[in-house]
């Protein structure tokens, strides 16, 4: 038996062991006779600090620690999709089979099914030259997604043998002879350390929006494919609903959803709902493109810390195949709290609010794993990884360290607002405080794919909403009567924007997803009313109620019910708007 360390201290998830010469940072170890999974997070001479991913009660000094000489890894290969894992990639259904309803300790189940046979179809032929990242074969993982089998990073040479047929992930499907006569045997299973980002050829500047179908996000505050965004908000403001809506409707090809330290029932909801829901883009079941990582708030805190990395590594793997991947992490605050808890137990010098001083750099490292990249391999394919993290600031106070560190590295900020949520305005994203820094990158996309007019209409809508905030102050003080007709028009338009454009029911099947073109049409209809009305409100005998009573106003208010492919009806609506409003002039 190999040399073992000896435990000298146990304090919650932190275990200190001695006799651990040769141990390396982030090496995985097995703690005590129960073989609990742990990871080395600090070394001092022959003593190491270990964070244990399972409950440590009943473990004591004197018990052994077994080194594994491996870092924390995830298993990558066919079978990831439709899976639901805990924070360290153990499939929850398997845990249930082994241990029943409760998660007990020392369960060792592999991340991927070892027995299942997958149909491997080769793409390259024997004798062809291949380099790292090249796709040598394909597996139909779900009816929606073809899993590409790639040459693992660091290997290249000539294909000596490639098979065709049904194999398990551990069977050899190809043999590569390296340029220096080494032989690489390739299986469909790859492993990758979770704390290291997977390599790519080159990172590019994102310039395509991630279409989410949520109007306020797509039109006002879009995030680019390959970008990073954050959703901070107090409890009850709808972070989770927003994240889930994104996971359901965004146009990424692969979704990785991380429930990090959140409610168990919420995860159950996702687990029960996703297999039923259909993807509006393809009509297939949503689950077929989804990987889930669930480490609920009552599951061990150290595994919560790891869950973010587990998820992002899986996401990067699909990115490397050339897919567009979106990762939702709900919530990164819980991850930061896990860092804080471990840091406290390590007796490190605390930074702000007890969080470790390295919170900022860890947050940055995580979000920087997003991006649109040219993948490894000779075919120059592109993949993207979009990261969207929810943040749960205590008391809704955005000045706290986790929010601030996140804002520093994300370019999109969707600020959720408790006041809007109380008014039952959903999504409760505050249009005044939210922002996106991708507008410049995405300008051309909008121009070329939606309309030349789009940017103008959007800017006008934003300024009307801004204006509303100011006017509301005045109304509160002196009443509606003090406003000029033009100002009243601004208020009415802003109300219409809020109620007919920004308000969106995530639980209504039709309303939950609006395609980009239709978003623009709705917005144009509302702004059209404003622009035409501007021409008449200054008339002396203009009566505001006449405008509100126009039948076309009702039609504009209901224009989101027009089917998404019926541009004609929108055009008719615009004509009618112009005609009937200008008729007030006489």
């Amino acid at each position, binding site marked *: 038996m190999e040399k073992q360390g000896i435990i000298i201290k146990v304090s919650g998830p932190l275990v200190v062991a001695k006799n651990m010469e040769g141990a390396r940072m982030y090496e995985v170890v097995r703690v005590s006779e129960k073989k609990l999974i742990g990871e080395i997070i600090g070394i001092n001479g022959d003593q190491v600090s270990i964070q244990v991913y399972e409950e440590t009660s009943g473990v004591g000094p*004197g018990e052994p620690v077994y080194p594994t000489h491996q870092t924390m890894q995830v298993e990558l290969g066919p079978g990831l999709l439709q899976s639901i894992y805990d924070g360290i990639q153990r499939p929850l259904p398997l845990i249930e089979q082994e*241990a029943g309803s409760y998660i007990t300790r020392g369960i060792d189940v592999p991340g991927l099914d070892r027995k299942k046979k997958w149909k491997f179809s080769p793409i390259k032929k024997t004798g062809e030259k291949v380099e790292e990242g090249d796709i040598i074969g394909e597996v139909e993982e779900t009816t929606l997604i073809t899993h590409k089998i790639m040459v693992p990073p660091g290997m290249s040479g000539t294909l000596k043998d490639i098979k065709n047929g049904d194999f398990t992930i551990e069977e050899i499907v190809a043999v590569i002879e390296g340029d220096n006569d080494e032989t690489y045997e390739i299986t469909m299973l790859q492993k990758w350390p979770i704390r290291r980002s997977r390599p790519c050829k080159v990172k590019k500047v994102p310039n395509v929006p991630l279409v989410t179908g949520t109007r306020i996000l797509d039109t006002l505050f879009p995030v680019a494919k390959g970008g990073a965004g954050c959703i901070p908000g107090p*409890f009850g403001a709808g972070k989770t609903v927003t994240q889930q809506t994104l996971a359901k409707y965004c146009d990424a090809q692969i979704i990785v959803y991380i429930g990090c330290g959140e409610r168990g*029932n919420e995860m159950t909801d996702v687990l029960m709902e996703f297999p039923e829901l259909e993807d509006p883009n393809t009509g297939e079941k949503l689950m077929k493109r989804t990987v889930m990582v*669930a480490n609920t*708030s*009552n599951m*061990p805190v150290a595994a919560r810390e790891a869950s973010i990395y587990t998820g992002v590594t899986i996401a990067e793997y699909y990115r490397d195949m050339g897919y567009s991947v979106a990762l939702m992490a709900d919530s990164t605050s819980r991850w930061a709290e896990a860092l804080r808890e471990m840091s406290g137990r390590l007796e490190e010098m605390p930074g702000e609010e007890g969080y470790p001083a390295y919170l900022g750099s860890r947050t940055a490292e995580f979000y920087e794993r997003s991006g649109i990249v040219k993948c490894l391999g000779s075919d120059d394919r592109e993949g993207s990884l979009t990261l969207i993290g929810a943040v749960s600031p205590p008391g809704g106070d955005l000045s706290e360290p986790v929010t601030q560190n996140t804002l520093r590295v994300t370019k999109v900020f969707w600020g959720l607002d408790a006041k809007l949520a109380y008014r039952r305005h959903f999504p409760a994203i505050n249009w005044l405080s939210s922002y996106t820094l991708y507008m410049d990158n995405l300008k051309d996309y909008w121009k070329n794919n939606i309309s030349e007019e789009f940017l103008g209409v959007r800017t006008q809508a934003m300024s009307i909403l801004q204006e509303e905030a100011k006017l509301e102050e005045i109304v*509160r003080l002196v009443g509606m009567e003090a406003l000029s007709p033009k100002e009243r028009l601004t208020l009415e338009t802003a109300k219409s924007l809020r109620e007919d454009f920004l308000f969106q029911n995530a639980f209504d099947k039709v309303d939950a997803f609006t395609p980009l073109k239709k978003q623009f049409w709705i917005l144009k209809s509302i702004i059209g009313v404003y622009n035409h009305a501007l021409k008449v409100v200054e008339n002396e005998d203009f009566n505001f109620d006449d405008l509100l009573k126009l039948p076309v106003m009702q039609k504009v208010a209901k224009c989101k019910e027009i089917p998404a492919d019926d541009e004609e009806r929108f055009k008719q609506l615009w004509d009618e708007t112009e005609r009937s409003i200008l008729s007030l002039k006489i």
Partner: protein
Amino acid sequence: MQKEYKTIKSIAGPLVMIEGVEGIKYEELVEITTASGEVRLGKVLEAREGVAVVQMFESTQGVGAHGSKARFLGKTLQLGVSLDMLGRIFDGRGRPIDDGAEIIPDKKLDINGNPLNPYARDYPNDFYQTGISTIDCMNTLVRGQKLPIFSGAGLPHARLAAQIARQAKVISVDNEGNMAEGGGKEENFAVVFAAMGVTFEEAEYFTNEFKKTGAIERSVLYINTADDPVVERIATPRMALTTAEYLAFEKDMHVLVILTDLTNYCEALREVSAARKEVPGRRGYPGYLYTDLATLYERAGRVKGKKGSITQIPILTMPEDDITHPIPDLTGYITEGQIVLARDLHKQGIYPNINVLPSLSRLKDKGIGVGKTREDHSGVMNQLFAAYARGKEVRELAVILGEAALSDTDLKFLKFANEFEKTYVKQEEYEDRNIIKSLTMGWELLKILPETELKRVKAEHIEKYMTAKQAK
């Protein structure tokens, strides 16, 4: 073989450090015998080579560095559970205080429990009627939910909790709007009640309330009063939840767990954390407060393949009614909504003083509608919310501008808000309004408003439930 150690090195608050120990385990139970022969329990909080830091569950009064003996029991804290616990009252450590016999355990369970596999959970979706309109109609409770009451000092949360415990039941409604109790099935129902750091009077109120209504037969009570040792408080809710899990998932009962007052529990955690010299988080509470609370709240729920369920109603008092204080804040992040009590309503003599606007039940959508309550439930709920919110805005406006400056519509909303508080929010302590009545009352109130303003309810429901009835 268990050794006895006489090597207690230091004692600080609830923490005892013992030296020269061997073979100890983390979280192992420790029995300390004082010089006068009293036995106290504690658990290992930190196990180092040769040193154990022990956190006592009871007061350290009388424990000394000399003369006291420590024995490590080789097991973690377990609670003996049995069906005989129903109808009994225990202290915060699980010892009977009602002069009854000791419990002969059917099973011994670790009070910390194990995390429930999210995959093994079943989604809570059974409507749970509390008989209180503002909860049933507007912030619907479902079985398996954890819905805390955010209260403040001096507010009647105890009465509300007792009322819920008394009235809560599962009902079913058929298409014609006829109700049946118990969902037509024979249901086993139990209440587990844990009081942490409450005053003697409050504890008495609850026990009397339970005894008076006969509910005690189906209840298990854990009482840790304000003068009981602080550290016991940390074990109290865990005892209660372990009992609840046993009753729910092994004895197929539907268990309602009421925990009061979580603020005292968190204070106890802070006290122990400070004694351990840990780095504090916000307002001196330990950094792991979220995780710790989650291990309590997350023990609510339903499990696939099991008949029973655990519904939790934790009560906490918000210091200075501040909802951003760490305790309500972190609670809100874990629980599935919250019921917020309002001081101004209380001052106006309105009971239950539930402020519906910041209150929320996250699971309501799964528990209402056709087959659960009635088809118009969601519409009525949203309409009441929207109208009351608008009415309150108008009320603010009226303060500035005077009522004379309000439009007719605004005046109607103002009237609605007033009536809503007086007739809908307010109800008697022993008034058990069923859901159909709550909905009907909602429609009655909505009649105050012009029909054109009722945008959240479906036109056919207005026809069916409002206009048609009027015609009669």
